[in-house]
């Protein structure tokens, strides 16, 4: 082969291989082998050096055979590079299910996990939430505080893997990830097992316990955040699995944990679904806060703007009936009082005034349809299920007061409440306070970060005042606390053929300082009522701190 063709084939072969290695890590093995086969042929072309005619045939064939075998060895080396390094991690962590339904995973991961002293998980105020204790062979995982169980997820190296916070910070807890790549490389080369780091959460355990007690095991969720920083102070999801019962330290214990797991799977109330972050609920009237924010920020309404509510509103043949007026003889209602009494007919009109596109813009600014940056998975809230749903006026009206196709998560709703009380700025929710190495050195600390801006500071202050007004005179007055500045909004989310979900979102200052400090979201599944009392109890406890 001429030199230019060989050079071209060599470059093409190298390009093909590196391209497939770099960009083709998702290629199926069969396709990758096809690429490698092609590269092998090109390499063979490149190695097909011209041999002068004076060289006898019997020597020429030796050179050709050597070239073929060399090209094959190169292909073998490339395959090793892909298997061990490029796809090494993915291959080693591959989990599959056999046709009989039996899962298979790398047995080394299990043993490695059992060898390492996994780090602790602690609350910000120093309470041990998940710990590691030495047992006969290896390590056991303990969960001393059931009140925090729903925050943590579970850790089951022998059977069910890891979930929740245990999974989100697995690399830190096992010591696989440190802040120093050089040290990591050193440990890799020297084959040292790293010790697990401790993870400190933003959770305030005192408040966590109050929240857990206030829920009293009822299905639903609570999230409490410090609104200026986005730090999650308490987070409860009910029902939650007991991580201590899922964990099995050795194969003698796996039968018990497997039985518990089977029970979890069979339960109709799905304890494995983390309500606080993955539970999607219809918001009901709490969404009026978003509608009001859009109207005020756009200058379309003021708290004192008056609307007509005579008990029924007809939009394009669709009747919206008003059940919430405290006094049926009054037919003129201000925007502010309508929020306090949660008047659907008024907010339907506000929604129509705002219009579908503007409402979409504001919902987007409030984080609807966006991925909330959080260490564990968070479901995305939705404004409308099908594109263009809001373009129909009756749908827009229903959405404006919180029905329609809206679906929201508790974590998202606490961000909405916090955003209103924080001058329209939604902070990124944080649950990790810091990662601490075994020697006490802080490896990583989280700093407050702004996530998005929903409206102007003035508009936010106005909406916040309306929410305080609602607690002073309206449906949410159950949340009123002497000496504590509470603002809030209730929601009663109608769900077909069952008791409605009871929502409350709000914020409060402390007893020392009326400026808003904490934001809360509470949902009680099919609870009808009760969310206000839960929120009040937690806000009082938080206000005392």
């Amino acid at each position, binding site marked *: 082969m001429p030199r230019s063709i060989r050079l071209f084939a060599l470059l093409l072969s190298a390009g093909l291989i590196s391209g497939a290695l770099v960009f083709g890590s998702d290629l199926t093995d069969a396709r990758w082998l096809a690429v490698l086969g092609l590269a092998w042929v090109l390499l063979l072309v490149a190695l097909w050096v011209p041999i002068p005619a004076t060289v006898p045939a019997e020597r020429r064939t030796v050179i050709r055979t050597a070239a073929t075998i060399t090209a094959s*060895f190169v292909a073998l080396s490339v395959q090793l590079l892909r*298997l061990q390094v490029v796809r*090494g991690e993915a291959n080693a962590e591959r989990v599959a299910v056999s046709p009989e339904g039996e899962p298979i995973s790398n047995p080394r991961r299990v043993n490695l996990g059992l060898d390492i002293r996994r780090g602790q998980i602690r609350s910000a105020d120093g309470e041990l939430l998940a710990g590691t204790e030495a047992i006969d062979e290896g390590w056991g995982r303990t969960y001393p505080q059931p009140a925090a169980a729903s925050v943590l997820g579970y850790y089951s190296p022998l059977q069910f893997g890891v979930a929740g916070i245990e999974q989100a910070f697995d690399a830190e807890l096992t010591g696989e990830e440190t802040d120093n790549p050089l040290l990591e490389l050193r440990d890799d080369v020297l*084959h040292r097992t790293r010790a697990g780091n401790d993870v400190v959460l933003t959770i305030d355990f005192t408040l966590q316990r109050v929240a857990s007690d206030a829920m009293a095991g009822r299905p639903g969720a609570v999230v409490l955040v410090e609104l200026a920083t986005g730090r999650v102070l308490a987070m409860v999801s009910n029902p939650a699995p007991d991580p201590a019962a899922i964990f099995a330290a050795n194969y003698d214990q796996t039968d018990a944990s497997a039985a518990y797991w089977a029970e979890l799977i069979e339960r109709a109330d799905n304890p494995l679904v983390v309500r606080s972050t993955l539970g999607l609920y219809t918001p009901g009237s709490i969404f009026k806060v978003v509608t009001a924010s859009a109207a005020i920020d756009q200058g379309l309404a003021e708290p004192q703007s008056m609307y007509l509510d005579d008990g029924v509103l007809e939009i394009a043949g669709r009747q919206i009936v008003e059940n919430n007026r405290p006094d049926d003889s009054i037919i003129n209602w201000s925007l502010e009082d309508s929020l306090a009494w949660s008047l659907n007919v008024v907010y339907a009109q506000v929604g129509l005034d705002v219009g579908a596109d503007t409402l979409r813009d504001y919902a987007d600014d409030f984080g609807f349809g966006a991925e909330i940056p959080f260490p564990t998975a968070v479901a995305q809230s939705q404004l409308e299920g099908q594109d263009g749903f809001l373009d129909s006026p009756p749908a827009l009206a229903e959405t404006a007061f919180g029905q329609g196709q809206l679906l929201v998560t508790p974590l998202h709703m606490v961000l909405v409440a916090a955003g209103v009380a924080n001058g329209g700025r939604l902070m990124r929710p944080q649950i990790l306070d810091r990662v601490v190495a075994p020697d006490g050195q802080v490896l990583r600390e989280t700093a407050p970060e702004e996530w998005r801006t929903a409206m102007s500071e003035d508009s936010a202050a106005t909406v916040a005042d309306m929410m305080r007004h609602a607690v002073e005179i309206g449906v949410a007055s159950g949340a009123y606390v002497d000496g504590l500045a509470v603002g809030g909004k209730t929601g009663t989310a109608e769900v077909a053929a069952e008791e409605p979900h009871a929502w409350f979102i709000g914020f409060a200052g402390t007893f020392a300082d009326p400026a808003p400090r904490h934001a809360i979201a509470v949902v009680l599944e099919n609870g009808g009522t009760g969310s206000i009392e839960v929120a009040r109890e937690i806000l009082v406890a938080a206000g005392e701190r």
Partner: protein
Amino acid sequence: MTASVQPDGTRPRGRLGYRPSGRLTEFQLLVAPALMTIVGLLTIYLAPRSDLLWSWGDLWVSLVYAGMIAGISLAFSLFRFRADQLILPIVATLAGLGLLVIQRLQPDLAALDDNLAGLASRQIIYMTAGLVFMVALALFPPLLPLLRRYKYTALVLSLALLAVTFVFGVEVGGARLWLYLGPIQIQPSEIVKVTLIVFLAGYLDEKRDLLTGGWQIGAVTLPPLPWLLPLGLMWGASIATVIVLNDLGSGLLFFSIFLVMLYAATGRGWYVIVGLASFAVACVVLYQFFGRIAIRVQNWLDPFVDPYGGGYQQVQSDYAISSGGLFGTGLGLGQPWFVSQVHTDYVFAAYGEELGLLGTLAIVALYLFLVLRAFIIALNADDTFDRLVAIGIGATIGVQTLIILGGVVRLIPLTGITLPFVSYGGSSLLTNFVLIGLLLNISNRSNRRPRT
């Protein structure tokens, strides 16, 4: 590859090899494998312990091995042996790695199966026997003329060995590979590799002129009978090995050796293509009829389809190799016992896990060097029979390595065969050392011949 021409019109001999002057190069190069086996064994010995207490007695295996290799090199010097000085260091490194991995695996395998308790001590005995064979064959000057004369005996021996295995062979793990002769078990297919190379070299060398001819029928040149005859015979024997002995790996290897040597002797590339195509067709037909082969193809493309059934071994091997990453876990620190047959066919998975990509690439490179070195010896050989034998040896080691390593890393479907010098097994070790003995003998002959 153009050779420079000396002013007197001759080509310098050994331009691709070393000019032999004592065997200092070889002795120096042997320091690396000696240190590797000693330090490696110390690592293996200390890895599961918490203290650092050891004595030289714990390392006796490696010390004896290093001593044997050094002794061989000195003996070669003493006999003014002139063979290529790179062969012994490469082979010593590979065999040393094999010794290490067996010692490393033995305690874990013994815990799983009592029958595997004596692996390491048996491996050392086989290795000693292999080294003795290698030295004896290398230092026996009239070896190659003798072999050339008895080429048909070699053919008869090859066929007889296969036939005896057909009849009396004992099945182990689905393949009928073993002959039990009292307390000794031998794997005839390994020995056949040697007799096959000897016969083919003798036959092809003798019939070279006939082979390049052909019958002209109209415009078509048909291959000559001396080509068709052995081709048919080899094809039949290889396929029979696959079907009757259930030994896909050996069948593939025999046929590859034949094709390479045929090509080397005749220079006809299309013989190889026709031969490969016919073997491929046979394999496709077999694929239709034998579920076993279909399983192998499935395991090659995605063993996770049936991870607890047919794919189990391959899945575990994948996990082991990919867990190694770049640096590996370190010798003695991995968990290779999850892979069944990790001491024979899947020994490479243990290296992959414990030595990482750096280790596996080094091993692959060593095999490639060895093969290329054999081809260089073939190029330097003046005797055409010698050259064919050297090519056969290089091709055997190269193809066998590719078949088993390619299978383990899922480059091709897996066909069970041993990894030369490394896998546990007496017949395999002995045979490979015999091949190296032949190779050294050839190299010595061509380097010793007076310059023209």
